[in-house]
């Protein structure tokens, strides 16, 4: 996106901050972003900064303990969101699903000031939760060089544009065009066309028009719809039967554009505008992105974290190994203050009031399926493996396990699905898993190990389920060297063992492979030969190995 377009989005937002909701700015930290953020001065002031790791009380408001104790009455602290002006959520890619849902609820209630989300994510998986993206009109990706930095829009009269905004009229034609573009881009949400309509209006108001022009609609479509596209429009399929007929049609259409409202059938042009703005990695983005709340970071103490779900606090003795729940302690002390004869403004706390924080220890399990999709595992076997994983999935679902999917074939391994509890997503990814190529067993194990380590850091208990025929023939460096491949696999296996990760090796080969049994031994895991992979047997093998 060019500098001019990006700043124009901010200008539109400045015209209708309440209606457009806000903007996601995806850019790495740097001079370009810094220069661009100057444009936020066009938005309502003051700016308040939100951070995904902030305490809930600070964001949404809550008990102000200090004041409550000082004044002896309930004092509520206002959260950041009660301020007017503009909210800037930094590090949007670290925002977890729960915070995203709570912020979204505020947006829905109309209690959210215009929201600017700064997203520094680098991978497609590392993104602002889609819940939030959905509720903001704009999403821009700044990938500009320093010399592309331009000036900020200054020649607009925003006060006048805001005033004019209410008078900008919409026509049914405009609505229909926007809706049709949404359909062809596969956008189902009703929010998208509504945002586009508002953006078009803001654009008209900014340009001093009170009737929507084709330019307004093109701008709006490019800004509001292109990043929501879930499929490429497929004109070739639709028009194949009669390619000749479209052109005279278009000629007629262009004549109509001469009409008073300047709005003929300009769907094609509008669509082009959206197409021109389709992000380069659209195919990657076709999968729902960021839904997993990528913010669950290493080491960060998340409230809902699996490491310890907060349980109701219990009376107890402070020992230095446990943590005092201050509020609960004060709560339990509060009723006795008169009896204990506390002076005003002071609280008498006795050891019996101490409340100790409790966390739930049992952590969730994540099953990491590493599926061999190589040519030797053969298409038929791959189908069986898929069947088995699906069966295991339904059991994992019942046990509330997380599941994750890694496939390896050709030269490398790939994480198809980071840990999730969503059956829908897993099934979708699994169904689209292609087969063929060499067997980079070591690479598959490396990928699975990386996932397992991340899961461990998040307090989950990983378990790797390896489905392969064991004919490793691609080494870690990508060379087709059977011997090196086996050595590499064995050394990764020892790594896995040193991490004390549970492993199950399901042999998909026609005959049990001694090598694979050795590998399972290296990992200190379980080896289950399944000469004829039968989905049900496989699933029961895993179940019994897990002891459930």
């Amino acid at each position, binding site marked *: 996106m060019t500098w001019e377009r990006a700043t124009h989005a901010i200008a539109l937002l400045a015209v209708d901050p309440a209606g457009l909701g806000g903007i996601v700015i995806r850019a790495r930290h740097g001079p370009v972003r810094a220069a661009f953020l100057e444009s936020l001065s066009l938005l309502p002031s003051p700016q308040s900064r939100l951070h995904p790791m902030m305490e*809930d009380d600070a964001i*949404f408001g809550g*008990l102000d303990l200090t004041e*409550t*104790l000082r004044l002896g*009455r*309930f004092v509520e602290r206002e959260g950041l969101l009660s301020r007017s002006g503009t909210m800037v959520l930094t590090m949007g890619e670290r925002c977890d*699903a*729960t915070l995203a*849902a*709570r912020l*979204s*609820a505020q947006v829905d209630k*109309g209690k959210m000031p215009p929201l600017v989300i700064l997203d520094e994510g680098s991978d497609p998986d590392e993104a602002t939760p*889609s*819940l939030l993206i*959905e509720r903001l009109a704009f999403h821009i990706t700044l990938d500009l060089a320093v010399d592309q930095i331009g000036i900020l829009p200054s020649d607009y009269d925003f006060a006048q544009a805001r005033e004019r905004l*209410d008078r900008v009229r*919409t026509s*049914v034609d405009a*609505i*229909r065009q*926007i*809706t049709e573009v*949404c*359909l062809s881009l596969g956008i*189902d*949400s*009703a*929010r*998208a*066309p*509504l945002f586009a*309509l508002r953006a078009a209006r803001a654009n008209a108001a900014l340009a001093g028009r009170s009737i929507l022009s084709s330019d307004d609609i093109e701008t709006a479509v490019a800004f509001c719809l292109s990043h929501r596209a879930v499929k490429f429009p497929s004109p070739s399929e639709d028009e194949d039967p009669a390619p000749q007929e479209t052109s005279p049609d278009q000629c007629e259409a262009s004549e109509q554009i001469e009409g008073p409202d300047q709005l003929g059938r300009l769907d094609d042009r509008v669509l082009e505008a959206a197409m021109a703005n389709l992000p380069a990695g659209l195919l990657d983005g076709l999968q729902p992105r960021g*839904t997993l709340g990528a913010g669950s970071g290493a080491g960060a103490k998340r409230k809902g974290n699996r490491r310890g*779900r*907060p*349980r*109701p606090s219990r009376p107890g003795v402070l020992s230095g190994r446990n943590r005092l729940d201050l509020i609960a302690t004060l*709560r*339990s002390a*509060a*009723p*006795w203050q*008169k*009896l204990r004869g506390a002076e005003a403004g002071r609280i008498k706390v006795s050891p019996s009031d101490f409340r100790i924080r409790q966390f739930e220890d049992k952590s969730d399990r994540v099953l990491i399926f590493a599926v061999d999709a190589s040519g030797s595992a053969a298409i038929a076997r791959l189908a069986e493996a898929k*069947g088995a994983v*699906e*069966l295991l*999935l*339904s059991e994992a*679902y*019942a046990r*509330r396990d997380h599941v994750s999917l890694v496939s390896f074939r050709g030269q490398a391994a790939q994480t198809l699905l980071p840990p*999730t*509890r*969503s*059956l829908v*997503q897993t*099934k979708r990814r699994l169904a689209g898993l292609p087969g063929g190529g060499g067997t980079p067993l070591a690479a598959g194990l490396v990928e699975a190990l990386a996932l397992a380590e991340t899961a461990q850091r998040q307090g989950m208990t990983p378990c790797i389920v390896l489905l392969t025929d064991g004919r490793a023939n691609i080494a870690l460096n990508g060379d087709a060297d059977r011997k090196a491949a086996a050595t590499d696999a064995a050394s990764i296996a020892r790594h896995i063992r040193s991490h004390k990760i549970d492993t199950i090796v399901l042999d998909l080969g026609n005959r049990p492979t001694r090598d694979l049994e050795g590998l399972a031994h290296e990992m200190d895991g379980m080896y289950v030969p399944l000469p004829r992979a039968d989905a049900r047997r496989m699933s029961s093998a895993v179940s019994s190995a897990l002891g459930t």
Partner: protein
Amino acid sequence: MKQPFPFSAIVGQEEMKTAMILTAIDPSIGGVLVFGDRGTGKSTAVRALAALLPPIKRVEGCPVNSETAKAVPVWAGLETKKVSKAPTPVVDLPLGVTEDRVTGALDIEKALTNGEKAFQPGLLARANRGYLYIDEVNLLEDHVVDLLLDVAQSGENVVEREGLSIRHPARFVLVGSGNPEEGELRPQLLDRFGLSVDVASPTSVDDRVEVIKRRDAYETDHEAFMVRWRAEDALVRGQIEAARGAIHRLKTTDSALRDIAALCLKLGADGLRGELTLLKAARAFAAFREDTAIGRDHIRAVAPMALRHRLRRDPLDEAGSGARVSRAVEDVLA
């Protein structure tokens, strides 16, 4: 504060609208779960429902919306016991809510100022005799879910903490909405919802244009729009009230009961809850249609929403549970 979008102005989404109307006719059906993609109007419909519900009679100022003065709990400390009409409560259960706010807890203000142990009622108290709405229900923390499961089952909220010992009625219609991509619901929680519907955006251009037109009119020409649709809403409210009266006079024939049992058997829906819900839903639907007895048409119409979330999960079946119910309906009620 802007008035919510009118219920009758929602384009299409007939199954979702019917499900909500049925719970309004007979709250004992036990709530609705709405699953669907973003921007399909899930929460719009729930908010709209509030305006549609007939008012209830309740003791003024009663924290649990008691119907009669006798039912007002002692801890409420109410002096006036005047009964008046009030809108049916629709209470939001926000994500990230603390247990204290859900169940109620020690009133910290009274404790601090007077040294008095008083109970501050929570959301469950406020939702009594009304609706409890959870948006993004699949993101709800497990410990809050556990609380809800217990209360939704017993219809009573028991608070035993901080030296308090309080119990109060908490009967509410549970309405949840969510996006299946955010994760699945625990089967135990699924089971607590009487009905479940899947929503999707309309597929025709004309319907979609209509959606945007109405939404746009709602925002830009609010007053006129509300006047236009409030009349329609009043009509539906009248139908709900009429159906509430008619439902007791409805005849349930043996053949209807047999159909329902056969359908549940065929689908292997666990427990009797499926049968009961299907019966109640069919009855409410018949009353809504101003019919005098439950017929196969009624059962056919409500079977998917009453049963689809009670089936054993089959990840290998791509068609989804709704299609399985429809197939069974075709077989059994052929």
